[in-house]
């Protein structure tokens, strides 16, 4: 479970709901689907992975009592900082994360799964920006399918990576990394 349980009738987390919504939109008949559906599928795919990470970051750095504190912590996340961290962890096998302070050591080299998570986040954030704002760009159904499947892979890889020794550094950098060089 990632994040708040919603009150709209579903027991899924917001991240899971967004992923399901992205899949629903991507599965619409490609012969009749619209630009709006494709763009919303890509956007929902990004926000699914964003909210998954946001919930995980908040769970790591904030207690859940009093009620709402952890959810409020998620609001402190900044998309660009998260993008920087994703870039820093995007190369599988790397023994240190680029742009992190020298004294922040990675316990292990970056795994295939963490590199995949980082790259997918980076790709989806850029695609989301295009989908939401670039009205000149023409999207096609395969764009939605590839991006939604990337988000699904992200969720799968996260399950594998979540307990790894690098994950605490990855998550902490997402929210605090910009201030580590003060």
């Amino acid at each position: 479970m990632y994040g708040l349980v919603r009150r709209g009738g579903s027991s899924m987390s917001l991240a899971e709901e967004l992923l399901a919504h992205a899949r629903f939109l991507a599965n619409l008949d490609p012969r009749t689907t619209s630009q709006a559906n494709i763009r919303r599928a890509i956007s929902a795919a990004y926000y699914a992975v964003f909210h998954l990470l946001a919930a995980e970051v908040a769970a790591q750095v904030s207690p859940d009592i009093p009620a709402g504190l952890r959810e409020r912590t998620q609001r402190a996340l900044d998309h660009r900082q998260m993008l920087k961290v994703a870039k820093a962890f995007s190369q599988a096998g790397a023994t240190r994360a680029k742009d992190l302070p020298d004294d922040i050591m990675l316990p292990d080299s970056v795994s295939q799964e963490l590199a995949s998570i980082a790259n997918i986040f980076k790709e989806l954030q850029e695609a989301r920006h295009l989908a939401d704002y670039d009205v000149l760009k023409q999207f096609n159904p395969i764009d939605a399918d590839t991006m939604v499947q990337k988000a699904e892979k992200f969720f799968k890889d996260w399950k594998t990576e979540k307990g790894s020794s690098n994950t605490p550094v990855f998550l902490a950098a997402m929210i605090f990394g910009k201030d580590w060089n003060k």
Partner: protein
Amino acid sequence: MADLNFDPIIGEEVCVLGRMEFFKIINVQPSCRIAPPNLQNIAAGALGLGTVDLQILGNNTILEGVPWALLQYNDETRPVRRTIEWLKTNPDGRRYPDYIVDYEVETGNDHAGNPSIFVRFLVDPDYFYENGRASQEKIAQLNEFTDEVQQTLLSLGLNRWTYVRAGEARRELDVAS
């Protein structure tokens, strides 16, 4: 990636350290050493290996025997294009998918302002659609391929961020026309 090299090739446009003109490579004396991409302007020439003959663009003046070390490549997409061309030879047991009909490589900034290189593989949509639906298995194969390309490009140590994705070839062309 042992056989991936970034040696100069005939037809490439280059600058030469200390010269103002633009040149075209008209002859290459091959190096016996494979330069890694981050040393492509240094290694071979620094060791005295490899020279090129150049023609100044716009006239017939020829410069002979210019060491590779002095060449400067203006096209920042060069290492990416060369890597993709290398991938097309199916090296190291990798497979360059048949359904990719073309690719585009562009420089620019991403939405956050980071200098980036955008790679877009244009795919034949007929390969992906079965009974009017995209095959999820084939989409997964496509994503695996673009992920592999992404990791290969990351290993080059480029200064720009790389974004690798795919798009439908035919529909793109329809839109363009």
